[in-house]
């Protein structure tokens, strides 16, 4: 499998993982390790002065793991830019998952604010991975604005509905000059495999692993699906035909 180059990093794994919704930090750590993900998202929260610090960062301190802070909670470009600067300071990385979703019901990304924030954050030297709708035109605009990759959604965040946007993902993959990472909505390893077969450079999975019956096993299943899908893409899938095409010789040896 070809390694995946993105900005200044090279990844062996094309499965990126989220850290939300796990039952415990230990369960999260086990699943993240089983996934073999090398890029792992974290969110930001206000520090509670009365509480002990949580152990999240300690659990993610593994040599192969790079952190990708997100701007979840930002409702516009201005808030996202502040969140990005705080994230860079707190986690000492200029990598950023830019997400701006003003509506909590569907958590759909705001394309206008995301484009505005990308323009500003690119000037500030961030490696930007914007979470967006599967909109091919927006992807080109983000490319011009200096994004490092695009992260179109398969379906709403946490919905596990799979690649509802497949036709548009195909257009994005065909046209994109920056890596395409399918984010959100991937519910089953087969969805991840499908995204990779279509030619996505990577996928980002969180809920489907975190809330599975056995997150660690599911992480392993996703890891294998992503490898299978990528290998299939690199091997180039056989064409689809309307009529049957025999795989066995049709000599009528039983009669005649």
């Amino acid at each position: 499998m070809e390694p995946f180059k993105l900005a200044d990093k090279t990844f062996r794994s094309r499965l990126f993982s989220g850290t939300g919704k796990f039952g415990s930090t230990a369960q999260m750590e086990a699943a993240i390790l089983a996934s073999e993900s090398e890029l792992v998202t974290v969110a930001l929260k206000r520090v509670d002065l009365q509480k002990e610090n949580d152990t999240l960062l300690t659990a993610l301190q593994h040599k192969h793991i790079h952190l990708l802070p997100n701007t979840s909670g930002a409702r516009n470009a201005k808030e996202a830019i502040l969140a990005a600067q705080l994230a860079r300071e707190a986690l000492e990385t200029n990598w950023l998952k830019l997400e701006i979703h003003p509506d909590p019901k569907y958590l759909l990304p705001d394309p206008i604010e995301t484009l505005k924030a990308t323009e500003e954050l690119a000037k500030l030297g961030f490696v930007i991975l914007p979470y967006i709708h599967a909109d091919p035109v927006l992807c080109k605009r983000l490319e011009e604005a200096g994004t490092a990759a695009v992260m179109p959604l398969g379906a709403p965040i946490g919905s596990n509905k799979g690649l509802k946007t497949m036709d548009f993902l195909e257009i994005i993959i065909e046209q994109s000059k920056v890596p395409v990472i399918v984010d959100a909505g991937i519910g089953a390893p087969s969805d991840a495999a499908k995204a990779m077969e279509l030619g996505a450079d990577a996928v980002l999975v969180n809920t489907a692993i975190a809330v599975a019956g056995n997150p660690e096993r599911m992480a392993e299943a996703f890891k294998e699906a992503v490898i299978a899908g990528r290998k299939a893409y690199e091997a180039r899938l056989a064409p689809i035909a309307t009529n049957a095409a025999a795989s066995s010789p049709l000599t009528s040896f039983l009669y005649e």
Partner: protein
Amino acid sequence: MEITINNQPVTIPDDGLTVQDLLYRELSDKQNGIALAINNTVIPKTEWSNHYITENDHILIISATQGG
């Protein structure tokens, strides 16, 4: 003087507290992996020891948490 930290009102001594002093006072040893903004401007770690808190400052302190 009165300030807010993460939207909570906090009273601190009037005599020239730096960001570093404030963090030590409020968070003691829990300062790993945090970032801070005053009135929506991020104060980099390198400036914590020479940036002074002033009356009515709105201070935001964040850290990482689980998320997708």
